[in-house]
């Protein structure tokens, strides 16, 4: 199988950085393009709390989006980036339904690594529900 269309859910954690690097390697091998999504976890109860900080969060994300863009243009790999609001798992699965990806590359755990098992809840849900191969980066 050719990995032409690669999806990387990104949250700026060490693991997702590694996942992105792996995506660059795979994309350069098969002339693929990478879709990177940033998801701001968001629901009705949290919306009131988050609202004032939305701008700050957005700016923070844009900062590392630019960094990624710079890295990608240096090694000449086409990427597209998106920011989404909502439940991370739902949003990732929605996007996977809409566009057909050949592979998903995801870190084993995201930013929240203090508690819980070594396989994160979002990664776990994606592995279980994905219809395409999932590469789990450790």
């Amino acid at each position, binding site marked *: 199988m*050719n990995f032409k269309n690669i999806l990387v859910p990104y949250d700026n954690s060490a693991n997702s950085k590694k996942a992105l690097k792996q995506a660059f390697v795979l994309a350069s091998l098969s002339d693929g393009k990478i879709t990177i999504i940033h998801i701001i976890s968001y629901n009705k109860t949290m919306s009131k709390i988050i609202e004032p900080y939305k701008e700050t969060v957005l700016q923070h994300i844009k900062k590392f989006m630019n960094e990624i863009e710079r890295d990608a243009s240096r090694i000449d790999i086409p990427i597209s980036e998106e920011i989404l609001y909502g439940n991370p798992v739902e949003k990732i699965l929605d996007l996977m339904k809409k566009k057909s990806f050949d592979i998903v590359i995801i870190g084993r755990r995201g930013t929240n690594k203090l508690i819980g098992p070594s396989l994160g809840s979002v990664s776990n849900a994606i592995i279980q529900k*994905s219809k395409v*191969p*999932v*590469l789990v980066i450790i």
Partner: protein
Amino acid sequence: MVKEIKKILVPLDGSKNSFRGLDEAISLAKKNNASITGLFVIQAFPTEIGVLRTAIGKALSKQSKNFLSQAQKKCKQKDIDFIDIIDYGDEGAKIVSYAKKIKADLIVMGSRGIGGIKQLILGSTTNYVLHNSKIPVLVVK
């Protein structure tokens, strides 16, 4: 950059999914110029070693050799180096320890093996490996 993929470990249990994993591994190996190690773990616990000397044990090891030679044939067609390993013990633990032993860069496995319950979306062995592996795991559907 991330380490290039030079050695791929493919746990095989004879199920359709594990062969799908092998196909994926072959196409990856082709691109990366990597070698493939096929690992067949015959489930056995220390108390069952006696069983392995009997007819069931013989049948199992014959079956495993059969599967591994199938895998070898597939790799030979695509001109990829293939090493086969057969071992006895707990599947998940063996896969993780062999990944370390042979210094593999990637494990490719199906989301389910031959285990019975179809409703379980993620197999127990795959789950174990995902939790305990020290190297990236590609889960093939």
